[in-house]
């Protein structure tokens, strides 16, 4: 069993939480005693943080819409198709037609990359996230 200190995702408090990993599975969540926010306790959401991670409904394969239905596909096909479509619409709309939603649930690094991608690659400032919701 391995305790990995990370940061809880269930609200803006940002509790320090140890995820217990065993054989590639997260099996428990406990608070950090010395963390300035969590101080050895979590709320009910934090204590059950591990429960959703391995839910069978997790997406594990890229999906692509074919004949109106989402079907599993390869990473290459999903990425190629997405890149092609984004390039096409970007060029057809003079950089105005693509909107990007970033996420308040993703990391800073990912948010940074996505806004960089939007601005540098898609050539638009059409990026936002649901800060206000």
């Amino acid at each position, binding site marked *: 069993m391995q305790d990995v200190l990370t940061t809880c995702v269930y609200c803006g*408090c940002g509790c320090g939480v140890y995820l217990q990993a065993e054989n590639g599975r997260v099996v428990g969540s406990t608070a950090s005693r010395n963390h300035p926010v969590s101080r050895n306790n979590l709320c009910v959401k934090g204590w059950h943080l591990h429960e959703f991670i391995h839910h069978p409904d997790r997406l594990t394969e890229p999906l692509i819409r074919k004949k109106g239905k989402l079907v599993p596909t390869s990473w290459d096909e*999903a990425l190629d198709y*997405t890149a092609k479509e984004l390039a096409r619409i970007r060029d057809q709309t003079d950089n105005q037609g693509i909107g990007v939603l970033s996420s308040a649930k993703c990391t800073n690094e990912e948010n940074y990359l996505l806004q960089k991608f939007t601005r540098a690659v898609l050539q638009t*400032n059409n990026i936002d996230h649901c800060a*206000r919701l």
Partner: protein
Amino acid sequence: MAGLATTFGSGAMTNSINEIENAQVILVSGSNTTEAHPQIARRMLDAVDRGAKLIVIDPRKTLLAEFADIHLDIRPGTDIPLLNAMMRIILDENLVDDLFIEMRTENYYQLRDMLYRLDLDEAAKTTGVELSKIYKAAQLYAQAQKSVICYCLGITQHICGTRNVQSLANLAMMTGNVEKGDTGVDPLRGQNNVQGACDMGALPNVFPSYQPVGNIDFREKFEAAWKVNLPSKSGCTLMEMTHSGKDGPIRAMYIMGENPMLSDPVLSKVEETLRNLEFLAVADIFLTETAKLAHVVFPAASFAEKTGTFTNTERRVQMVRPAIAPIGNCRTDADIISALALRLGYAMDYDSPAEIMEEIAMLAPIYGGMQHDRLEACWGLQWPCWDRSHPGTQFLHKYYFTRGKGHFVPTEHEPPSEMPDKKYPFLLITGRIYHHYHTGTMTRKSSTLNRECNEALLQINQVDADQLKVRNGETLKVTSRRGEIKLTAEISEQVKPGSVYTTFHFAEAPINLLCIDTWDPLANCPEYKVCAVKVTKP
């Protein structure tokens, strides 16, 4: 967060979470803290145990209101008249911090002149709170050495959200309750990394660290670093993108880890927009309501499967560490974006998230000293952190406000765009509950949390329930001018007669079908908190 940006220059919590327990007076406005921010409520209750006074402004008698010395149960949407009345009382009682106003702020006289024009009785009548209670609250807040204001979406999700925040800022500046430890104005951010997403420039008008895209100097800095020309025009906001309709300007969208099909107001409009896109790509961990409409869905790694940082509500940037490898064929969002960029002819070759953070530190001054190695060695750092020797910032605006001088913005009452009438006699208030988070994508998949709470309840006062002949647990139909949903009745003294309350976490009961599609023009924040509905037995 435009409210604090215009008054203080920085739209973030001025204090740290742990400072709240040292405050002498805590004014909580529009925050159901015990349910939405349990750790912060813990500090508030600790403070109360140590003798601090608690003022709660909330139309509902929340759990926190039970502990309040003064509970100002205002009519929803009347925060500005209430706060103006408090400020007028402070002015009349001569509790103004003249020295602070003189040294550190500007535009005070405009506010004062406006306050002198205010009719206190009229204001009290508008809010529905007795004037004597407002007096007590004003005195309590202004007389203490350390008064702290905490607010949440109950303040911002109004048509006048920005002005509400500005009023709170006025109140704090007028009494000198900023720029010190244990006292300030603290917006409690709802989502775990909403602060970080803003800091990182996931906004249509600013680069990371709030550097405007319209400013040529900042743009040149990023152009040089990213080796590409950048657009100068501000982009579309979320509401403009998701509500543009079937003939709107947005033809394609890339959505990372968001579920506008449940979180945005007027879901029918969102659905119309998304369904008519030429192309929609969604990266998420579950097949959300939004992902179901996509042309391509990328399986993303969860937070337990990646390295990175989150920024909490007190501006603390902390490490996220992987406990396991991505499950199945999942990839991290960073990997997905890099792969797309590469296919579009722009190489983003980072060896690790740490390398991305190094780039952030170079370009985003408030993150200047926040490389992963430093964050690893402590419990995270609070921005601004200008360089590697900077210890981070416990509270903001020490010595001077971020924008220079604190700017008073006089504000006047603006009623909600929809008030109850004969046809729709109830005021619907929305909020969060303890057991679930946001659109429930994750918490609804947790067996314990789902056991504890598995359905959206409609809180209704006994008086109204009697009139409707409704018992606890019965199904009720809630109709607004925009849609209808069914909810289970929970008779509760928390809501006043004439008001009903529910939550937005449940896909089975998408409350945003009912909400009005007006928003605060200054912050683009939808008016979620209030709308008029009728409640009937189905």
